[in-house]
C-alpha cells in the first residue's frame, strides 16, 4: 500500500484519539512521501499516551501541513520524496506497525548509504517546522536540579568541569538539610504552577518521601521499575533462546520483540492510575540502552526523555549508586538491586549525566531564561547556572541551599 491509498478504515486499530487525529488529517497523510509517513505515524499511533506538550506539537505540525499550498507542500517534502526505498516496503503493515517499519527504514538507509541524505532532509524539515510553528517560552523559567554523588564520602574528581564555563561554582555550600530544601522548592513550584506533567522527579534509587503525585509531581524511580526491567530482560532472553533454536535470532527480530513489549508484559498494568506515565516508563526501558541494568543510565535517559517529550517546568533528578560492572550475560539476568554497587563510578556517570541534562534543558523554548543547579549530595560543592549567576566563576561564600536558590530565582 502506498500513502495515496490510505483510507479511514486503515486506522481502525488505532487508539481513539490517535484514530481521530489520523482521520481528521487523512488528506494530508495521503500526500506525505513514503520515507516520512510511517515515521510520522509513530507519533500519531501513540497520541493517546503522549504528554500534552507532544500533543500540542503534533497538532501544530498537522495544522501547518494542512495550510501549506500544494507547491509549498511539495517543496517541503521533496527531500523525502527523493529517498529511494525498496518496493517490498510497501507490502508491510506500516500503518499498524510504523515502529517496525522505522527500524527497517533505518537499516535500509544505512546499507544504501542514503542515511546522510535522510538526515539532511529530516533536519531541514524540523527546522522549517520550528520556524513556522514556534513554541512559546514557558510562563515561568524552567528549573532543573541534579543531585549526584550519593554514597561517595569524598572524591578527587574535579566535578562539573564542562558546566563551569556556564555558571558559578560554589565551594562552601552548607549541606545540612540541602535535600529537604530542594524537595520543598520542587513542591512549592508544583503548587504554584499546577500543570500536568510539568514537574518531574526522577530518582536512581528509592525516592524521597513527600515528593510525588500528591504534591502534583510526576515521579519515576529505578527502584520502582527494577522488577519491570528484570522482567523485560527475562522475556527477551527467553525469546532469544527460542529464536536461536529456530536459527532466527538476529538484531532486527530481537529489537522488534523488545519494541513490542507493553505495560502488561512488564507487569506495569497493575498501576494504571497514570497510564501516560506508565507508557513513558515502558519506552524508557524498551528504547533506552542500559536503562535496565544501570540506575545511572536510567536517570540520565529518563531525564533526557522527560525534557524532550514533556518539556517540564521543573525537573529534579537524583542519582544513586548503580550496580558494579559484570559480564553482560550476568547483568542481563540478575536483579540489579541485589548487587554490590560502584559509588565512585556512579559519581562519574552522574557528573556526565548532569551535563547532558543541562544540554537537553537548553534545547527547550525559554532556554535563555532557564535555571540549572547541580549539587554533590551531602557536600559543599554545587554549581548554579542562571541569568543572575556569573559565568566561569567560583565562589567560596558560605551559603545554604535556600540562599543559592534565592540567588538563582
Amino acid at each position: 500500500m502506498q500513502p495515496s491509498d490510505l483510507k479511514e478504515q486503515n486506522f481502525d486499530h488505532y487508539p481513539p484519539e490517535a484514530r481521530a487525529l489520523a482521520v481528521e488529517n487523512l488528506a494530508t497523510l495521503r500526500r506525505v512521501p513514503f520515507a516520512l509517513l510511517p515515521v510520522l505515524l509513530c507519533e500519531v499511533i501513540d497520541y493517546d499516551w503522549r504528554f500534552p506538550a507532544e500533543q500540542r506539537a503534533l497538532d501544530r505540525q498537522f495544522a501547518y501541513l494542512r495550510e501549506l499550498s500544494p507547491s509549498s507542500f511539495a517543496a517541503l517534502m521533496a527531500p523525502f520524496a527523493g529517498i529511494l526505498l525498496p518496493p517490498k516496503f510497501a507490502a508491510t503493515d506500516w500503518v499498524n506497525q510504523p515502529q517496525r517499519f522505522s527500524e527497517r527504514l533505518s537499516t535500509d538507509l544505512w546499507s544504501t548509504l542514503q542515511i546522510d541524505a535522510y538526515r539532511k532532509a529530516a533536519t531541514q524539515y524540523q527546522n522549517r517546522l520550528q520556524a513556522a510553528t514556534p513554541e512559546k517560552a514557558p510562563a515561568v523559567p524552567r528549573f532543573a536540579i541534579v543531585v549526584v554523588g550519593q554514597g561517595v564520602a569524598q572524591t578527587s574528581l574535579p566535578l562539573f568541569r564542562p558546566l563551569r564555563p556556564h555558571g558559578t561554582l560554589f565551594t562552601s555550600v552548607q549541606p545540612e538539610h540541602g535535600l529537604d530544601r530542594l524537595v520543598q522548592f520542587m513542591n512549592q513550584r508544583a503548587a504554584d504552577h499546577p500543570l500536568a506533567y510539568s514537574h518531574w522527579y526522577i530518582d536512581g534509587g528509592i525516592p524521597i518521601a513527600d515528593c510525588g503525585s500528591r504534591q502534583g509531581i510526576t515521579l519515576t524511580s529505578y527502584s520502582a521499575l527494577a522488577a519491570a526491567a528484570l522482567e523485560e530482560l527475562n522475556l527477551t532472553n527467553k525469546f532469544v533462546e527460542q529464536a536461536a533454536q529456530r536459527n532466527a535470532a538476529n538484531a532486527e527480530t530481537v529489537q522488534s520483540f523488545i519494541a513490542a513489549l507493553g505495560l502488561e508484559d512488564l507487569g506495569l498494568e497493575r498501576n494504571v492510575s497514570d497510564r501516560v506515565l506508565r507508557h513513558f516508563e515502558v519506552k524508557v526501558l524498551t528504547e533506552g540502552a542500559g536503562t535496565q541494568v544501570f540506575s545511572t543510565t536510567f536517570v540520565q535517559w529518563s531525564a533526557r526523555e522527560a525534557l524532550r517529550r514533556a518539556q517540564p517546568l521543573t525537573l529534579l533528578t537524583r542519582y544513586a549508586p548503580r550496580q558494579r560492572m559484570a559480564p553482560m550475560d550476568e547483568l542481563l539476568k540478575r536483579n540489579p538491586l541485589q548487587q554490590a554497587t560502584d559509588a565512585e563510578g556512579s559519581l562519574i556517570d552522574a557528573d556526565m549525566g548532569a551535563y547532558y541534562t543541562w544540554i537537553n534543558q537548553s534545547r527547550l523554548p525559554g532556554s535563555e531564561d532557564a535555571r540549572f543547579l547541580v549539587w554533590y549530595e551531602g557536600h559543599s560543592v554545587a554549581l548554579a547556572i542562571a541569568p543572575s549567576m556569573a559565568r566561569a566563576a567560583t565562589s567560596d561564600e558560605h551559603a545554604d541551599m535556600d540562599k543559592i536558590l534565592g540567588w538563582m530565582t
Partner: protein
Amino acid sequence: MNNLFSKITRERAWTRREFLRTAAGATGATFVSQFHPLMASVEIHRRKTVVVTFGGGARDEETFAPQGQENIPHLLNELIPQATFCTQLVNRGILGHYVATASLATGVYETFDNFANVAPSHPTIFEYYRHALGRPADDAWVIAPSNGFNRIGQSSGIKFAPGYGAQVILPKHLLAAALGPDHPRRDDLNFLLQDSYENPLSTPVMSHTDVSISRLSEILHVSLEEFTRHAQTLSSADELSVYVMRQLMRQLAPSLLWITLHDMDVAHSGAYSLYIEGIQRTDRLCGEIWQAIQSDPEYHGRTTMFILPDFGRDSDFDVSGNGFQHHRTGDPLSRTTWMMALGPHVRPNFTVDRPLDSLDLVPTLGALLDFPTPFAQGKPIAEVI
C-alpha cells in the same frame, strides 16, 4: 548542513593540530627536517605492518581535547611524538563495528548487515598482500574482538580468487574452548568472554566454540593450563587479545597483523565511567603493543604500526543522539576520527591536516608494501608512504 559539516570537521582538526603544537612543542618545519627515510634501508619483503583499530570509537572530548588528555598518556607522550598524525579521517560508510572494520580492511564501503555472519564483498588487504607477494597463510593474521568478526579475513571470493585470506583468531573463542563448560574458574572468567556491547541481548555469550584445544596449543605454543592461568591475571577482553597477539608475534612473527580492540564500546551501556576506563585501557594497550614491537627482534626496525578508531561517537550536541553512548546519528563527529602511523620510515611528530577517507588505509598499505589493491576505492596517503 554541508557547511555545518565542513565547519565542524575543520574545528576538530584545529583542536588536534593545536594540541599537537602545544603538547609536542614543535613545528612542521622541524618535523620535516628531522625526517630520515630509514625505510629505504629495509627491504620491502622484510617489512612488517601492524594495524590497531578501535571498535567503538573515542571522541575528542575524551581524548585529544584538553579535558580528555589525561585519559591517553601513552598516545600523547609516547606514541604521537614518534608518529605522523592524520587529524581528519572521515568514515562515510555504515557506522557499525564489523561492517566498518571490514570496510577499513577492503578499502570499499561494505554495505552488508552489521550483525550478519557474512564475509566482506570485496577483497581484503590480506588477500591482496598474500596473493601479490606470495606469502603463506601464517603471514597474515587478524585478532578479532567478537563472534561477528570471524569472517573478516577473507572476502566472499566473488571478485578475487579464494584462499588468500588472513587467519582470524577470536581470543574469546580460544578461552571458551580452553575453559570448557565445566571449568571450575569459568564463572570467574566470564567477563573476558563478553561478545558485544551494542546488541548484547541478541548476541548470546559464547558457550560453544569450534576452535580445538590442540589448535590453541599449536598456534600459541602455550598449554591449556598456562593459557587459562594467564587469563586469570587479565582485567579485560582486550587484554586477552593483546596477550594472544604477543604470543602470535613470538611464535609466528606474521608480517601483516591486524588487531581490533573493543573494550571502550561498553559506552553503549550509558555508563560514562566504564567508557573512560575503556579508553584508558586501550591507551595503555597501544603503548604495550608498540613496546612489544620494539622489543622483538623480528619486528624492531622494520615495522610500521597504524592506530585508528573505526569511527567516532555521537556529538553531545546532536539532538537525535545521546552523546558518547552511541554512534547512530551519522553526525560529523561520529564520522570523523583520526589515524596515526609509526615506524622507521614514518615522519615523527608530523601532522596531516587535510581530510582523508577511511578507505585510504588499504591503498596506503599497498603502496607501503608494494602490492596493488585494484578494487580499493581510497587513495594512498602521500605523507605516510
